[in-house]
């Protein structure tokens, strides 16, 4: 293992920070301070190696070998060029090209809530933004979240006033167009008391060369808010995608997340959910990877107060020589009685070279809780293949159908029909070409 570990070079991080002074100073002193703190944090950290417990399966040496530049000017895309990424139900859409807000490609079809970019809202909502921006996703010990915050200039912003229920999903579309570019997508969703909203966070690409997406997303749910968070990572095959998401759930709020990881050469998603009293969450995921891809998902569901409920189904479909990693931490803090938590993790290995490292991690500091977890790793069930063949379906078709069904169990949980259908189609195509 140590042979492949990189020597973290502060030079590399310095290179990544070199573009930072170009981030324009804000009129808001607190934002400048947030950034300078992050720069300082980065300077104390290094790029993690396999020797770091949190990164022991995910080797980032490839990332440190490419030279990356931040993108400050967006490539001009036409509406036509990005049309294929549109999601029919999501009439409200914020588009970021290489991390830069593209107002011409965006569409705001709501008026009782704020769906905008940070730069436009900063002056109007300074106090509220100061209270939340960068306050949920921690940068301490997290070099990538710190790098993102160091470059924080603009962001996708959704703010829902009390009791607003938004039917149509809101699409946050992050498009990568340039090679050797690092982008820092940033999202903040503030759902006030009793709000309901569905947010689709979608990472796509128009090119196949290497680039790096380093994203940070924060969800803040006030009491009784209900938020669906759908995350789709379909980056290019040579790209790197590292993302940190933090969701803070107030009393009796409900956060349901479905995360699909299909793209990128190397991807890492950290999802941290913190539950207050009576809050509920689900954190479902599907990683479907092939060739030499690596998809690493680390989740932490923190039951900080009593009566919280969490459900988690994480699945991996691994083919070729791909490598999936899942680390699912469930924390039940002292005093968080009557916590009810279920976690299951199932992996389908389609080839001999496919590989998975999976680790459930339960840390319970309390009695009177219900926490279950289960994990399976395996191939397709021969009895199931036989069932389909006994109906006249060929063996190949039977295997494709079962592989598809394995993934569909997660995709079915996406409450946006057209997105669900298009992802099902992608899985269907992938299963029939990979086998």
């Amino acid at each position, binding site marked *: 293992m140590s042979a492949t570990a990189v020597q973290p070079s502060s030079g590399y991080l310095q290179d990544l920070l070199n573009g930072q002074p170009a981030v324009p100073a804000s009129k808001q002193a607190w934002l400048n301070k947030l950034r300078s703190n992050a720069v300082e944090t980065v300077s104390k950290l290094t790029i993690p190696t396999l020797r770091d417990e949190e990164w022991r399966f995910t080797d980032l040496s490839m990332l440190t070998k490419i030279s990356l530049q931040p993108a400050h000017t967006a490539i001009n895309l036409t509406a036509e060029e990005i049309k294929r990424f549109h999601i029919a139900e999501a009439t409200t859409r914020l588009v970021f090209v290489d991390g830069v807000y593209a107002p011409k490609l965006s569409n705001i079809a709501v008026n009782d809530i704020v769906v905008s970019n940070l730069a436009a809202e900063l002056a109007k909502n300074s106090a509220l933004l100061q209270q939340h921006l960068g306050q949920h996703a921690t940068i301490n010990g997290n070099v990538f979240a710190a790098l993102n915050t160091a470059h924080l200039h603009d962001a996708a912003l959704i703010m829902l006033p009390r009791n607003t229920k938004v039917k149509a999903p809101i699409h946050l579309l992050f498009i990568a167009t340039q090679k050797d570019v690092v982008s820092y997508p940033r999202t903040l969703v503030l759902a006030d008391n009793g709000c309901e909203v569905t947010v689709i966070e979608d990472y796509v690409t128009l090119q196949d060369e290497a680039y790096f997406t380093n994203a940070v997303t924060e969800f803040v749910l006030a009491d009784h808010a209900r938020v669906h968070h759908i995350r789709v990572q379909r980056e290019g095959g040579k790209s790197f995608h590292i993302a940190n998401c933090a969701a803070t759930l107030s009393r009796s709020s409900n956060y349901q997340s479905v995360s699909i990881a299909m793209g990128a050469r190397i991807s890492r998603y950290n999802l941290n959910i913190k539950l207050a009293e009576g809050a509920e969450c689900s954190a479902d995921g599907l990683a479907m990877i092939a060739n030499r891809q690596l998809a690493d998902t680390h989740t932490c569901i923190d039951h900080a107060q009593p009566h919280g409920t969490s459900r988690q189904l994480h699945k991996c479909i691994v083919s070729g020589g791909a490598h999936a990693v899942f680390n699912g931490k469930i924390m039940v803090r002292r005093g968080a009685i009557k916590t009810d938590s279920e976690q299951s993790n199932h992996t389908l290995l389609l080839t001999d070279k496919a590989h998975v490292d999976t680790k459930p991690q339960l840390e319970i500091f309390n009695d009177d809780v219900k926490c279950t977890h289960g994990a399976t790793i395996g191939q397709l069930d021969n009895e199931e293949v036989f069932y389909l*063949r006994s*109906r006249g379906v*060929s*063996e190949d078709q039977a295997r494709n*159908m079962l592989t598809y*069904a394995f993934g569909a169990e997660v995709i079915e949980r996406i409450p946006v029909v057209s997105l669900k259908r298009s992802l099902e189609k992608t899985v269907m195509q992938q299963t029939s070409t990979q086998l």
Partner: protein
Amino acid sequence: MIYPNSKTILEVRNLCASVEGTPILKNMNFTVKSGEIHAIMGPNGSGKSTFSKVLAGHPDYEISSGTVLFEGKNLLELKAEERARAGIFLAFQYPIEIPGVNNSQFLRLTYNTAQLHRGKEELDPLEFDDFVRDKMKLLEMREDFLDRSVNGGFSGGEKKRNEILQMALLEPSLAILDETDSGLDIDALRIVAHGVNQLANKDNAIVMVTHYQRLLTYIVPDFVHVMEAGRIIKSGGKELAMELETRGYDWVSAEYKAASRVAA
């Protein structure tokens, strides 16, 4: 029903099969003619479920000797899917669930696959919808059955009905029902049995594999066979099932052993 001059559908001669080196079927002999309904009974481990899987072409079973002719063709050289397309249907004891695959799409896929291989017309979704709804009436199935994923969240009874629905669509010449009565309450059993009875005709044949006599009061067999240790040790008419119900299997076994000693 037994018809005069009916053709032979299945002819099994001295069939020996094993799984992972353990012999399960030992010189199995069994003949089925069109129009007939057979019941294969026997205690657990007698090999009756294995026999049904062997006929359907389960790849885990190894055939060491013997022959199986299906409508005059060598069945053993066909793969499971080819047997299905040729007209063999196995209703499973435990049908699998396939989340994400819509039941109506699945039923249409299997139906059209069979039609294609029989040189018959395939149906588009609209045509199929009419066709399948008609068949569903036979099994008193609710309409939402079609919109759900295959067997997803179905009760035991619903799964078995879905199996018989597939039998109705595929119109096999040989249907093997493996423990179809298990897990059914009396109402579901009556519906399933009614469906099977409606599907039985002079051109097809049905083989029920069952542990209990219960199913046979609803689907009345022409022949009842008792299996033990991988072969049929006694055959008779429907009254044999009644006798097994009251007397158990031991006397059949004892009778067979005595007869074998005499023969030796």
